[in-house]
């Protein structure tokens, strides 16, 4: 049995030996080098560009500017294409932009024989701008008279959606209700995959070929086709190993431009290898969202009415757009039960900052920080235990989402919280730390979350799988669902091994995707891999098995109904006897001179279901008040992501997510200069990604409830670990010091400001 076992990663050997090839490792050394000339104003119109000096630099092959590119706006978001016009992604940027909307916007591209010539040429280009006023804050950007980024979107509002369950105004009239209301702020952060985005392109066989560090090869194929105005079949995208993505590479980043530039130099190989600074400032970031939350509560703690207003900073271009804040608003509506009404308004607003896109957990880290902070504020005001207040109000067992039909089948929240409390000895510490004085104080805090699996019914959910039998009875497994570090290839192999009942090592996953060869699928995002890949793998494995057994009928002269495939052998189910090995069957199938057949199977599964994933974080901190520093002493995440396909890899996913959320809560933030709109800390020294010395032991635990809708009982795990730690830490600081921090990151600057307000320093 391969499922449920901590098999070693199928790609680990290559990755610990340096054999694993990433995009730059594959690029031919003859590649021409691309560098981008970027705007040095946050908002404006390029009036003219002078490339004359740059063109004189030896080694410069060609310079393409915003005056040269087609006027064909590009939708970059890594969403499945929609046949519904109203649901298609917003196309609001060109390959190079005359109307520049953030500091660092793409204005011109240099193609040169080497890096130094390209860099020198970029420095030698001069652009004249008509400068416009710029705006960095979404609430400012919404005001009348604010600088406008895109003509079609008045007041910079990309979208505004709202909902109302029940009647909010009526509900709050209930006598005796207590009202809690506050603003919460989340920061702009960046994915910081260690491999920067990189791609290279060339023309061959009537196609434009692009090798890219992407999570979504098939989607990028479509976007490149759209951007270049060519048929999608004339685009080929290859995705090798990638050095992390976390959602940033769930977007068409520079593949369209790189492909276009190749066509401008006669199809020669051109490579665009982004710098770290460009990756920070010019790819995508997580939406910074400001929330205003109001809750009306009975004195016993029962939530009666909830009101959410969310303002999401989109940055300069739409990318994934409103989907992020909308997803958070949806989570808000369901995490707790409001007996009277729940009302939400979500806005996505353009500003002159880097475009916000997908980032691990897509809007849920933001709302979880805000809402779980808010719930602790209510608990504190009511003198209630935070766990008790949650138990009173959290999503009930048996709840069904009317839209997705997701069902809360089990008592997952309580099961998770019990484990978290036990690990931390939470209740004891809660009392022990209740009334501290002195400069150094300890506290414990917690937070809960729910997360969707995959994107149905918002978007298409389908996965295609191909299995090809080899002469030795092993199989090749291909999916469009990509390995981006999370371990997808390994769990896919485990699933195929399980359903086919063949040894794990006899499943050869083709890790790289090539849109000319790989079956269609949308890629890695939305924690969909195990859930969606599971469906198509099981379906395809059963199809392959039926073909194997059908062939075996000829060889064994026994009916398919009497045959099964068990442990790599064709077995007679009546006698239990192994009749022949799959290897012998394969050799027959390949080489039998009477009846040769290459046995393969391929199928698509379209999912029309989704699944709630649940969990919590419990954390213990020590706050040195005069130093304005927080030390994390203990932290545990507990997840119900259904059944674990590979417990060791599941744990590793949780570690990484916790780390990301610790950074989100405590240290990370991309800053912009208010005077110029220039990013201030677009490098790994000034952007405070956690190091080995900034983390405690990260404890990952699980509750395994078999998810009924799922092929292998599993559901979302890739993103959920990145949701709740930040809020749990915030609540632990509140417990330790009595000081509520309503904005992340809770770095020393913020602690100093708040402690000073509270008279602690």
């Amino acid at each position: 049995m391969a499922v449920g076992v901590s098999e070693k990663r199928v790609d680990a050997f290559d990755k610990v030996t340096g054999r694993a090839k990433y995009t730059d490792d594959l690029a031919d050394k003859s590649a021409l080098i691309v560098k981008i000339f970027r705007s040095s104003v946050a908002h404006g119109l390029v009036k003219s560009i002078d490339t004359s000096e740059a063109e004189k630099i030896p080694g410069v092959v060609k310079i393409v500017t915003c005056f040269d590119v087609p006027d064909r706006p590009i939708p970059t978001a890594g969403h499945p294409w929609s046949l519904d016009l109203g649901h298609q992604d917003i196309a609001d940027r060109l390959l190079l932009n005359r109307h520049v909307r953030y500091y660092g916007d793409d204005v011109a591209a240099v193609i040169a024989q080497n890096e130094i010539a390209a860099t020198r040429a970029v420095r030698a280009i001069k652009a004249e701008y008509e400068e416009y006023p710029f705006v960095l804050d979404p609430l400012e950007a919404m005001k009348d008279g604010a600088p406008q980024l895109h003509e079609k979107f008045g007041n910079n509002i990309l979208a505004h959606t709202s909902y109302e369950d029940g009647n909010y105004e009526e509900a709050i009239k209930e006598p005796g209700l207590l009202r809690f209301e506050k603003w919460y702020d989340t920061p702009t952060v960046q994915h910081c995959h260690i491999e920067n985005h990189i791609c290279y392109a060339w023309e061959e066989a009537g196609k434009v070929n692009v090798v890219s560090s992407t999570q979504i090869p098939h989607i990028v194929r479509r976007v490149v086709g759209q951007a270049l105005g060519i048929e999608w079949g004339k685009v080929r995208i290859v995705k090798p190993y990638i050095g992390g993505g976390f959602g940033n590479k769930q977007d068409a980043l520079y593949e369209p431009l790189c492909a276009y530039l190749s066509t401008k130099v006669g199809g020669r190989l051109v490579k665009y290898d982004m710098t770290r600074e460009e990756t920070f400032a010019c790819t995508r970031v997580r939406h910074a969202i400001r929330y205003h939350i109001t809750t009306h509560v009975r004195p016993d703690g029962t939530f009666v009415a909830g009101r959410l207003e969310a303002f999401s900073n989109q940055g300069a271009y739409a990318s994934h757009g409103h989907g992020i804040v909308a997803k958070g608003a949806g989570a808000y509506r369901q995490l707790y039960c409001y007996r009277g009404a729940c009302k939400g308004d979500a806005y996505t607003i353009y500003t002159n900052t880097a475009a916000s896109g997908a980032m691990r957990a897509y809007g849920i880290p933001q709302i979880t920080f805000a809402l779980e902070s808010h719930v602790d504020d209510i608990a504190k005001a009511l003198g209630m235990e935070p766990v008790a207040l949650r138990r009173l109000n959290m999503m009930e067992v048996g709840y069904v989402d009317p839209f997705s039909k997701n069902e809360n089948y089990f008592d997952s929240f309580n099961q998770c919280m019990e484990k978290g409390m036990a690990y931390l000895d939470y209740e004891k510490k809660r009392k022990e730390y209740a009334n501290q004085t002195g400069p150094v104080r300890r506290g414990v805090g917690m937070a809960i979350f729910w997360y969707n699996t995959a994107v149905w019914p918002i978007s298409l959910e389908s996965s295609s799988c191909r299995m090809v039998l080899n002469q030795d009875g092993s199989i090749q497994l291909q999916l469009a669902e990509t390995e981006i570090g999370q371990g997808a290839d390994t769990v896919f192999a485990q699933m195929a091994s399980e359903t086919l009942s063949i040894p794990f090592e006899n499943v050869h996953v083709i890790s790289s995707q090539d849109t000319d060869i790989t079956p269609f699928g949308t890629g890695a995002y939305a924690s969909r891999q195990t859930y969606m890949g599971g469906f198509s793998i099981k379906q395809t494995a059963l199809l392959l098995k039926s073909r194997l057994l059908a062939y075996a009928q000829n060889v064994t002269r026994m009916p398919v109904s009497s045959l099964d495939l068990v442990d790599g052998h064709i077995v007679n189910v009546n006698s239990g006897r192994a009749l022949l090995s799959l290897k012998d069957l394969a050799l027959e199938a390949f080489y039998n001179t009477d009846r040769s057949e290459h046995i393969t199977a391929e199928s698509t599964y379209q999912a029309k279901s989704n699944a709630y994933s649940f969990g919590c974080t419990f954390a213990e901190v020590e706050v040195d008040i005069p130093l304005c520093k927080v030390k994390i002493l203990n932290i545990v995440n507990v997840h119900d992501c259904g059944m674990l396909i590979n417990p060791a890899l599941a744990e590793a996913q949780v570690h990484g997510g916790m780390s990301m959320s610790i950074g989100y809560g405590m240290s990370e933030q991309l800053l912009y200069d208010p005077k110029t709109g220039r990013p201030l800390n677009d490098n790994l020294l000034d952007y405070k990604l956690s190091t080995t010395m900034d983390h405690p032991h990260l404890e990952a635990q699980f509750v395994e409830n078999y998810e009924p809708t799922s092929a292998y009982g599993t559901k979302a795990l890739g993103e959920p670990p990145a949701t709740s730690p930040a809020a749990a830490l915030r609540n632990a600081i509140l417990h330790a010091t009595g000081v509520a921090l309503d904005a992340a990151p809770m770095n020393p600057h913020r602690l100093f400001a708040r402690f000073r307000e509270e008279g602690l320093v």
Partner: protein
Amino acid sequence: MYDMKALYEAKSVPDAISLLQEHPGARILAGGSDVLVQLREGKLAGLEFVSIFKLDELRGVSLEQDGTMRILPLTSFSHVARDPIVNRCVRVLAEAVDKVGGPQVRNIGTIGGNICNGVTSADSASTLVAYDAVVEVTGPEGVRQLPISEWYVGAGKVALRPAELLTAILIKKESYEGYAGFYIKYAMRNAMDIATLGCSVNVKLSGDKKTVADARVAYGVAGPVPMRAKSAEEAARGKPVSEETVEAAAQAALADVNPRTSWRATKEFRLHLVEELARRALKEAINRAGGEI
């Protein structure tokens, strides 16, 4: 690829000096952890460079006959950190340079480069300032020595004349003997970071460990250059080993410093840290010197 116009590798100190004379605009490249980064940023692009990296004659730590500790400038942070002489004489310097960046940065970064770039946040600088280090430079006119107080002439500017090379950092016996020190690097991360504020303190106690015979307090990032806090020293010198003395010195430090607001930290926060770090570093230094608070 680094956009250098030319690279000249020096074969010796005199060779380096003559190369610098021949190429007046050339910059000195030691470990490169600072200069190469600036070169990549475009700040130094297209210039000429004289590399002294391979001059092993500029590596190492020794004790002179009079007890002066001589640190050669190309000694990497990691070598300074584990050098037995440094650990015996000025342990706090070993500890301070062990807080620079991360292990690989400490292997390439040099203590000489750390003070030649004139940066106020340099982890070695406040300790060297606190110990009244003497800087030895060699140039076309020969060797000269100057106190570190005269070395820093402004933010990012040091008293190196054209074609001169830092050839040693000296700490005299009277500067370290009998002193115990403590350095606090305050940063946003526990590794791979630059100081928001650095405070290096050392004290000498009376024989009975009851009185602060001498105290030296130095800061990084409390002003444009690493600096001493003379008022704080004054407030501690000759005073009893006590909470009150520490408190008085910590508060007095505020009069000596001049931090600024930047996006990295506000002036108010830095001032708060000036006081708090002095308090903690003084206590630790006194404890190390055998005093009890």
